[in-house]
């Protein structure tokens, strides 16, 4: 089966305050980088997987993002998929389908 690498990026939603990003932003300012506006921290994950084809791999990674890697109450995700062998992009960037507002499960 073909091997793929998904590079997943998880970010806090714009509406969620990011204190880590804010601290980094202040550090950059104190170093004289006055042109720096907002800094937002996120998480980057590399998932290596085998799948029958690109579309299956894309579906699987999306499923992983929606169930585990990203919490839709506070975060959005985005990923790119490349073939492991030649490191060529297999599909374009795949963002969260819904802006997924925080839902009240109960």
């Amino acid at each position, binding site marked *: 089966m073909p091997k793929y690498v998904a590079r997943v990026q998880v970010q*806090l939603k714009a*509406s*969620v*305050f990011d*204190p*880590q990003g804010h*601290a980094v932003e202040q550090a950059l300012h104190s170093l004289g980088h006055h042109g720096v506006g907002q800094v937002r921290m996120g*998480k980057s994950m590399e998932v290596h997987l085998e799948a029958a084809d690109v579309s299956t791999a894309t579906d699987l990674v999306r499923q992983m993002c929606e169930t*585990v*890697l990203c*919490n839709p*109450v*506070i975060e959005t995700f985005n990923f790119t998929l490349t073939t492991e062998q030649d490191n060529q992009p297999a599909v374009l960037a795949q963002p969260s389908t819904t802006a997924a*507002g*925080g*839902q*009240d*499960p*109960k």
Partner: protein
Amino acid sequence: MKWAVVVFPGSNCDEDAVSAITEVTGDGVDKVWHTTRDLSGYDAIVLPGGFSYGDYLRSGAIARFSPVLAGVQEAAAAGKLVLGICNGFQVLTEAGLLPGALLRNDHLQFRCELTPLQVVSNTSAFLSDYEVGEVIQMPIAHGEGRYYADEQTLDELTAAKRVGVRYLRNPNGSLRAIAGVVNGAGNVFGLMPHPERAVAQWMGSSDGRRMFLSMKRFVEDNQVAVQSDGRVDFLATRAEKVGVGQRHGH
């Protein structure tokens, strides 16, 4: 009644919870390892504080997939009481048993201190022994306790009196100073402060005792009726008990 305290790899308040429940209620308490699937023998389940699975990915994100959580989900649906303290609260939000999420404190500091809380609503099984508006003291000990939910959810929680306790001096940037929320049926409660660390005067506060006593009284005074649509009703078996009537929820 019979209590279970769930132990995940990385839990560190499990012994405190067992001691507090034993001392306050005199009931039997089992520590239940995270691989246990069946919790049907318990009336109340406590998810303690700590750093389950190292808090990798997000606090509570991995614990949510452990076998014991399936048992917790079933117990919650069957009308048993589920209390999540600190990391336990984080696990319950990740599991979808409670709304919202808990984020890094807005000032990035880990806060460990006795903190004043106000009881906002006492209609749940966990707070019936407190007065609405009463100020109580419990310790907090967390770096990720900033409660977040979208505005609509916050409005719904407020309107349905599902915010159980709020901070008088917001220690972490929680929206609307929320410290603990209850589910719609009133049998699942999560809070960041530690009631189990406030059960004796020498601890600085004994205000946590009444949380365990409220739960005990609720279990002893109510019969659970799960309706065919999954709705959980609690039927008071002792009519004179104030604050415990019939409750509905999904």
